[in-house]
């Protein structure tokens, strides 16, 4: 798929990879903007698939990726190939059962490109998630500006998340940051809600939803956002049961 120069497109990839069209390849032309929503929420994960996106000069990508299925693997490769390209990613994965695997690779191949990736990971009892995020900056990609963050919430002592953000930098004039955090539900917040009469289970659900909601807030399409928000609530209810 090609996004023509200077155009603006919006695309929803819903449970991609089910057919034989893997990897999906997208080229964003010069000065073009693509708003892309990638959602996996099928009961069964389907086969592993990869999405490759290349950005040309001054192209922009806004990507929200939600992984609410029960396992499987998906790869996302972003290539900032033209000067001044910008990619912003907001991701959520919620592992309720089985093992889900998310690979992200962002390559800065031209100077003056910007990448932002903010991920949130959730795992419930019996759920395991692996997230490997890599930002690579090649020697000629000077003035690269990159940030990769992943925050994780473990809902059970049996939940497991392996999240590894990684930088591979071979240029010297760059600004790159990365980090991962892991935590459980905030006991002080839980007590606060309970002290107002909200039952423990409902309080847990509220706090979990608040954590998971952030990437959804980035979806400008209200109807889609609300639909996915409901889907997320269902999944969280299953995870906390």
């Amino acid at each position: 798929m090609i996004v023509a120069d200077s155009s603006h497109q919006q695309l929803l990839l819903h449970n991609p990879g089910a057919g034989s069209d893997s990897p999906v390849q997208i080229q964003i032309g010069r000065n073009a903007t693509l708003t892309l929503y990638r959602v996996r929420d099928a009961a069964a994960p389907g086969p592993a698939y990869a999405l490759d996106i290349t950005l040309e000069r001054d192209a922009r990508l806004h990507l929200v990726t939600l992984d609410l299925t029960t396992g499987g693997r998906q790869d996302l490769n972003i290539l900032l190939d033209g000067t001044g390209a910008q990619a912003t990613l907001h991701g959520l994965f919620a592992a309720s059962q089985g093992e889900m695997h998310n690979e992200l690779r962002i390559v800065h191949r031209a100077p003056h490109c910007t990448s932002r990736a903010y991920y949130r990971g959730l795992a419930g009892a019996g759920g395991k998630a692996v997230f490997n995020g890599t930002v690579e900056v090649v020697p000629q990609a000077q003035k690269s500006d990159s940030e990769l963050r992943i925050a994780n919430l473990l809902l059970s002592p049996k939940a497991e998340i392996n999240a590894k953000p990684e930088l591979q930098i071979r240029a010297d004039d760059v600004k790159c940051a990365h980090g991962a955090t892991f935590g459980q539900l905030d006991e002080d917040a839980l007590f606060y809600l309970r002290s107002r009469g909200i039952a423990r289970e409902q309080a847990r659900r509220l706090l979990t939803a608040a954590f998971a909601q952030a990437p959804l807030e980035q979806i400008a399409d209200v109807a889609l956002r609300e639909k996915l928000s409901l889907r997320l609530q269902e999944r969280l209810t299953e995870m906390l049961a």
Partner: protein
Amino acid sequence: MLEIKNLHAEVEGKKILNGISLSLKAGEVHAVMGPNGSGKSTLSNVLAGREDYSVTSGSVSYAGKDLLAMTPEARACEGVFLGFQYPVEIPGVSNLYFLRTALNARRKYQNQPEIDAVDFMAWIRHRVSQVKMEMPMLQRGVNEGFSGGEKKRNEILQMLVLEPRLAILDETDSGLDIDALKTVADGINALRSPERATLMVTHYQRLLDYVKPDYVHVLAGGRIVKSGGPELALALEEKGYGWL
């Protein structure tokens, strides 16, 4: 309404409360004062059901029921309210949704119909102005980015929404400027009635200028060392805690 008998409690193996006995009747306002580390906040938190405090002996009965056997949410639904010394910020949960969820939890517990979002807006509007908050603050996350004074106003707003029978206010007056203090005091006074009781835990006499207590108790070393009328608070203001 509240009968605390010989209450002992500890946190992480450290004894904090060493035999507190206190009795509050409906219609009364009691102030508990005391120096730092005397057990004031522990007492408030134990009454609200915080789980990291363990009660080692004694009893607390509230409206004839064993308070200590109830979960924090059951205590709240039965009409106990704790005003927090340090209200918690909860980003991602809107203040408005939180208030309505809390009110409806209590209504459900009492077999009353839930209030829908539209009726709730109408219902809450004057309470918001009562504590001199602005409606847009309800759209923000609970206490998210609120100043110290705004957090305490928000505590009083929650109290006005939930209309507790027993309000326990843990240093609600600390860190407030004089305007915020008056607003908070007005909120407390608005709920004063023959059916309700208030336990104000405070460091300073200041709040008591605006909310007149019926009784004042001094807590030191995890027990009540002196009780009296409002004049006791004035004496403390003048002489400190050393003379007790």
